[in-house]
C-alpha cells in the first residue's frame, strides 16, 4: 500500500470505524446499567404492590402488559402450591428466592425479585436478555448515523486527498519535462509549504547539474578547438612530405611530422590528466611522501632538462607527508617542473624545495625564467591560456592541471618572484591529520 491517498483513506475510515465501535460499546454499557437499575426497581415495585395491595399499581400495569418487556408474575402458597402465574413459563424457577437474584434456568438468565407474606410467596421475573437487547438497540441507534455517513466521508477524503496531492503531480510533470538540454528550475510559487523544500532542493540539484554540464561542454569544446592546431600542422606537414621532391625536404618533413605527432600526443595526455584531476573526480586519500613523489617525478624529467642544459635540484627533508593521491601529486610536480625547465635559459638551475611552514607542507618550485607579471597571475591558471609573450608552444594546460590537483588536495597555490630571478610557484598543503 504505497499510495498516500489510499493510506490516508484506509487510516481515516479505520479511525471512523474504531470511533463507532467505541461509541457503541460505551452506549451499550451505559444503557445496560440504566435499564438494570430501572427494571430492578420495577420488579421490586410490582412485587411490593402485589404484596401490600394485592394488585398491580396503575403505573405498573402498562409495563406489565408490554409483552416486549416480558415480566412474569408468579404466586405460590407458603407450602409451595402455585396459585397464579401471569404467563406460564415452563422454564421459570419453581421456587422463589426472596429479594433480588439472577437465576440460570435451562440456559436462560432471569432476573427475579421475591417477597413473602404470611400466606403467599410472590415473585416477579424478567429475562436478562430483554435488558441486553434494549442496550444493544440503543447502541445500534447511536452509531447508525455515523455508519451512514462513512461512505460519504470516504468519498470526501478521497477527493480531498487528490486535490491536495495535485501540486505533487504538477511537480512530477515539471521534473519529467526536464532533460540534459533544459535544466530550468521548476516553478515554486504556488507549491504548498510541505512541497516547497523538495522543489528548492530539486532546483539546487538542477543548478549544480547544469553548471557541471556546462563546464563539461566547455571543456570538450575547448579540447576540440585546441586539437585543431596540432591537426592542422600535421595535415600541412603531411602535404609537405607528399610534395617534397628532394631528399633534404623529405627528411625535414618527416622530422616535422614526428614533432607534430609528439605535440598532439602531449596535448591528449594533458587533456586526460586534467579530466582525471577535475575537482569532482574521486581521489584516493592516503598518506603520501611528497619528497619521494618529487624525487621520482624529477628522475623522469631529467632527460628533458638535460636536453635544455638545465639543472634540476631537490631540497627536502624526508619524509614530508601530505594526504592525497600519489599519482595526482606526481602530475602536479611534473607540470611545475616541466614549466620551470621549459622557460629557463640554458645553463640555469631549477630548484624544488619542500619545507614546513606553520604546520603546512609547502612545495616551492623556483626558476630563473622570465616570470609572470602580476596582471596575468590569475589567468595563467585558466585552461588553454597562453601568455602572449610565450615563445614556447605548450599545451596551455600545465597550470590548469596544477590548480585542479591542488584544489582536490585543498592546497593553496601562490605565484611569486623567485630568488633565482624567475618565477616561484608555492603549493601549501594542509597538514595531515
Amino acid at each position, binding site marked *: 500500500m504505497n499510495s498516500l491517498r489510499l493510506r490516508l483513506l484506509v487510516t481515516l475510515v479505520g479511525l471512523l470505524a474504531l470511533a463507532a465501535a467505541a461509541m457503541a460499546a460505551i452506549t451499550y454499557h451505559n444503557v445496560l446499567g440504566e435499564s438494570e437499575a430501572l427494571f430492578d426497581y420495577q420488579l421490586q415495585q410490582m412485587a411490593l404492590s402485589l404484596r401490600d395491595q394485592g394488585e398491580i399499581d396503575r403505573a405498573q400495569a402498562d409495563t406489565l402488559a408490554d409483552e416486549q418487556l416480558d415480566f412474569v408474575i408468579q404466586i405460590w402458597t407458603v407450602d409451595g402450591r402455585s396459585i397464579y402465574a401471569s404467563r406460564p413459563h415452563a422454564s421459570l424457577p419453581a421456587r422463589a428466592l426472596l429479594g433480588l437474584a439472577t437465576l440460570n434456568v435451562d440456559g436462560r438468565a432471569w432476573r427475579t425479585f421475591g417477597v413473602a407474606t404470611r400466606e403467599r410467596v410472590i415473585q416477579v421475573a424478567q429475562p436478562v436478555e430483554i435488558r441486553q437487547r434494549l442496550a444493544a438497540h440503543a447502541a445500534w441507534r447511536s452509531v447508525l448515523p455515523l455508519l451512514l455517513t462513512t461512505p460519504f466521508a470516504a468519498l470526501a477524503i478521497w477527493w480531498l486527498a487528490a486535490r491536495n496531492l495535485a501540486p505533487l503531480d504538477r511537480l512530477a510533470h515539471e521534473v519529467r519535462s526536464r532533460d540534459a538540454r533544459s535544466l530550468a528550475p521548476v516553478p515554486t510559487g504556488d507549491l504548498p509549504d510541505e512541497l516547497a523544500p523538495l522543489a528548492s532542493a530539486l532546483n539546487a540539484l538542477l543548478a549544480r547539474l547544469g553548471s557541471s554540464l556546462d563546464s563539461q561542454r566547455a571543456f570538450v569544446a575547448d579540447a576540440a*578547438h585546441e586539437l*585543431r*592546431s*596540432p*591537426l*592542422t*600542422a*600535421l*595535415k*600541412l*606537414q603531411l*602535404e*609537405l612530405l607528399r*610534395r*617534397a*621532391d628532394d631528399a633534404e*625536404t623529405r627528411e*625535414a*618533413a618527416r622530422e*616535422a611530422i614526428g*614533432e*607534430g605527432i609528439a*605535440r598532439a600526443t602531449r596535448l591528449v595526455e594533458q587533456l586526460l590528466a586534467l579530466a582525471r584531476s577535475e575537482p569532482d573526480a574521486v581521489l584516493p586519500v592516503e598518506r603520501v611522501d611528497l619528497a619521494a613523489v618529487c624525487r621520482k617525478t624529477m628522475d623522469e624529467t631529467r632527460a628533458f632538462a638535460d636536453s635544455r642544459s638545465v639543472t634540476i635540484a631537490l631540497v627536502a627533508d624526508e619524509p614530508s607527508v601530505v594526504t592525497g593521491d600519489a599519482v595526482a601529486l606526481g602530475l602536479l610536480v611534473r607540470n611545475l617542473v616541466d614549466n620551470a625547465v621549459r622557460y629557463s635559459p640554458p645553463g640555469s638551475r631549477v630548484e624544488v624545495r619542500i619545507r614546513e611552514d606553520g604546520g603546512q607542507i609547502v612545495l616551492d618550485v623556483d626558476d630563473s625564467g622570465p616570470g609572470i607579471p602580476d596582471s596575468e597571475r590569475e589567468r595563467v591558471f585558466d585552461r588553454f591560456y*597562453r601568455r*602572449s*609573450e*610565450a615563445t614556447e*608552444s605548450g599545451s596551455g594546460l600545465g597550470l590548469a592541471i596544477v590548480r585542479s590537483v591542488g584544489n582536490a588536495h585543498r592546497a593553496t597555490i601562490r605565484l611569486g618572484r623567485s630568488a633565482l630571478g624567475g618565477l616561484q610557484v608555492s603549493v601549501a598543503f594542509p597538514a595531515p591529520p
Partner: protein
Amino acid sequence: MRLLLVEDDRMIGESLQRTLRLEGFAVDWVRDAAAADGTLASERFDLVLLDLGLPRGGAAGGPADGLEVLRAMRARRDPTPVIVLTARDARGDRVAGLDAGADDYIVKPFEFDELAARIRAVLRRHAGRAEPVLSQGGVTLDPAQRRVTLHGSPVLLSAREYAVLEALMARPGAVLSRAQLEDRLYGWGEEIESNAVSVYIHQLRKKLGADFIRNVRGVGYFIDAGDPQAR
C-alpha cells in the same frame, strides 16, 4: 606571387610556408599582430593569409589580434586581398572576419589543396578576372595546374620562370621593374641571385618567342596587351 603569412603557431607556420614555396609562391611569415601590422604598413604583398587568434606582440595600442590587423589594413585603404585562417568556426567569427574586410576564410584544419585553390580564386577576382586561365598572344597560363602552353602545346618552365611569367601576364601592358619582380620571386631571407630576373626573362623569351616579353630600358618589363585578334 608574394604572400604574407601571419600565423603564431610555429609548426603550422613552418610547414605552410614550405608547402606554399613548393607551390611557387614567395612567402614571408610573421608571428604576431604587431609584426603583421608593421610589415603590411611598409611592404606590398599580393595576398595575406591571416590567422585570427594572434598574440598582440607589441606594445598596447597596436592591434590585439588578427581581426584588428585586418581592420587597420582596411582603415588605411590597403586593398591587398586577405584570406582569414581561423580555428574559430562559429558563424559569428566568420561573419566578423568577412565584414572586417576579408576576401575569404578557411577553417582549420584545412586541406592544403583547398587553401591553394582559394588563394588562386581570390587573386583572380582581385585582378578583375572571372576566367581562371590567363591568355595573351598565343600563350596560356593556368594557375591551378601551373601549366603554360604556347599555341596549344605545353611549355616546360621552372618554378621561378613560371612566377615571373605569371606576374607579367596577370597585368598585361603594365611595366614591372626588376625590383618588383624580385619581390614576387623571393621571400625574406632567401638569397637573391644576382641578375636572376634577366636570366629568367631570357629563358622565357627563348621558350615563348623573343617578342613576347617587351623591355623598357631602365624601367622594366611588360607583355603587350595586344589586340583581341592576336589571341
